[in-house]
């Protein structure tokens, strides 16, 4: 029971964390990408469609990366190059992905939505570690995407806080004019962050279809992209904080399934609303966005 719960927590946390780590890079460069939901949905759809017709998970994952990057590229042209309002653009990009995946899904798989399943991604148990009672299955018996996600946590922390590139990235998010004056190329760096984030978010979507649901339904991301936005805020723009917040929200989602099955007096909707309510409380309590990059969300136009 507890073991199954822990496995479920990691499974629920992985796609959120993966997308949130990408969003962290983007936000450090000074951009808020609400289109993250759209990139995740596109990744989910591309991964499943390609894996279904080709029979190859590797091709499916590649397709998810391409789809996520493509959606973020649309966003980047408008937001980074044309300095358009990031919020409205992000919302439109999400609606676009919702519409396109819906239309193509019905076209490819029929109006009936007959189940088209793929085999779940192969698990890679880490030798004897996977046999540790309780923790083994939860931590050391997962598919490659889960390991990749959790390895990214220290990796992205290191890049952002300890490397020259991370310094440049943060300069673009704190003082884009100054960064530009130093010749750092704000446009190029924001594009790079959005491309990497598109790839990660696409993979997060692929996890939903190839590893979790093993099929696609319309709007399968169901707001997880927005939960990833919350994770970045609640995690205070820090990789380790993001991991902790993802696990917390993953636990809330996993609990909700248990409660729904048990039929307890506690409404399960409370747990579904938790990530969003907690984000509001954290934002209100910590005095707004003190930990956020200063130029977050402001379009930058070279003078």
């Amino acid at each position, binding site marked *: 029971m507890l073991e199954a719960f822990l496995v479920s927590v990691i499974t629920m946390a992985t796609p959120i964390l993966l997308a949130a780590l990408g969003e962290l890079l983007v936000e450090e460069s000074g951009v808020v990408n609400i289109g993250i939901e759209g990139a995740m949905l596109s990744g989910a759809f591309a991964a499943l469609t390609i894996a279904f017709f080709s029979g190859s998970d590797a091709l499916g994952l590649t397709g998810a990366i391409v789809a996520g990057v493509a959606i973020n590229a649309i966003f980047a042209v408008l937001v980074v190059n044309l300095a358009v*309002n990031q919020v409205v653009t992000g919302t*439109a990009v999400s609606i676009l992905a919702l519409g396109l995946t819906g239309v193509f899904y019905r076209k490819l798989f029929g109006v009936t939505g007959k189940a088209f399943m793929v085999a779940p991604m192969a698990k890679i148990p880490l030798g004897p570690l996977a046999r540790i009672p309780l923790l083994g299955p939860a931590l050391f018996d997962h598919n490659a995407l889960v390991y990749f996600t959790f390895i990214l946590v220290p990796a992205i922390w290191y890049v952002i806080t300890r490397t020259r590139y991370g310094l440049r990235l943060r300069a673009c998010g704190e003082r884009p004019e100054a960064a530009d004056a130093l010749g750092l190329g704000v446009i190029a760096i924001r594009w790079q962050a959005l491309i990497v984030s598109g790839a990660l978010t696409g993979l997060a979507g692929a996890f939903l279809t190839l590893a979790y649901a093993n099929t696609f339904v319309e709007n399968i991301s169901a707001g997880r992209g927005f939960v990833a936005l*919350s994770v970045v805020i609640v995690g205070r723009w820090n990789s380790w904080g993001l991991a902790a917040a993802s696990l917390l929200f993953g636990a809330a989602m996993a609990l909700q399934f248990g409660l729904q099955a048990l039929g307890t007096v506690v409404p399960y*909707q409370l747990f579904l609303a938790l990530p969003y309510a907690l984000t*509001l409380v954290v*934002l209100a309590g910590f005095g707004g*966005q003190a930990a956020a990059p200063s130029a977050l969300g*402001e*379009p930058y136009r070279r003078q």
Partner: protein
Amino acid sequence: MPSSIAKPFAALALSAALISIVLVALGASPIGVFAALGEGAFGNWNACVDTIVKSCPLIFTGLAVSIAFSGALWNIGADGQLTIGAIAAGAIGTHLGDLPHSIAVAIVLAAGAIGGAVWGGIAGWLRARRDVNEVISTIMLNFVAVQMLSWMVHGPLMEPSRAYPTSSPIAFAAQLEFYFPPSRFNLGMLLAVVLAVACYMLLFNTSAGFELRAMGRNRRAATFYGIRIPALTVWVMALSGALAGLGGAVQVSAISHRLYEKLSPGWGFEAIAVALVARLNPIAVIPAALLFGALDNGSQAMQRTQGISPELVQVIQALVILIILAFDTPAWTGLRENIFGAAGDDASAVPPVAETPDA
């Protein structure tokens, strides 16, 4: 043709062209699809009335978004505000059986407006007093509202037989009647039109409206001018929420009569397309809402005859938004001036949606 009108039409034409490409990729005939959309939306008298009925919530949410965006407050939460308004209306509406019709209807609509105003006002207060970006807070409040509705129809407001996750129908006295049955034309549409005119007057003929637009143009300059930005922020968000909440109450009172999960198919997001096509002009919100209501209404017929799923309408919405945004940028203006010479008549009533004038 002044460019303030030309831009939305050009955006619609360009998105129709892009949609045609998508349709060809799907193996469908663009002409057939557009014809089916038009036939479904305006093919006969009933279809026309249905188009009007379907555009009604879009006028309310479109006004909500227009008012907020005019003040450069990016309210992405019209959907949640509408949902809370609907919950308030649906909850109170079941208890009004003993009241006269007009009073019961007034109470239900007021409940919806208040519910929406509270939901929008929370985001406004968080922005004004706690420096919380309203984009993030309204998105989060949307999801909280959706879960609250789900809890309500599974819990406290569930109908007595507890067979279906819906609430009991509201009292007959609280229901808006249909004027030309079997069509569902009701008072809500007239209310929406009156409110559109009122919002226009507020924005362009009152000092409060001037302050709101000044805040939208340049927050810092508005502060120096003596406008009390925090108080105005709360009021604008509350008003915006009230308009959306009223839309939810009208939907419950006239059409659905009860609450159920996923009451809104995304009216609050579609409203962004409506508001941008209308260039944030409240009067223009009416034709813009009719356009998108027609697309929604025609999409069923399109699915029947052309086999294209109704989600195509979302693709159209998104493309219209993206193209209008791109048209508003200096890059485009520069290009146009290179081709046509400086226009000079572009001083539209729209705050620069292309940038956040917050810096």
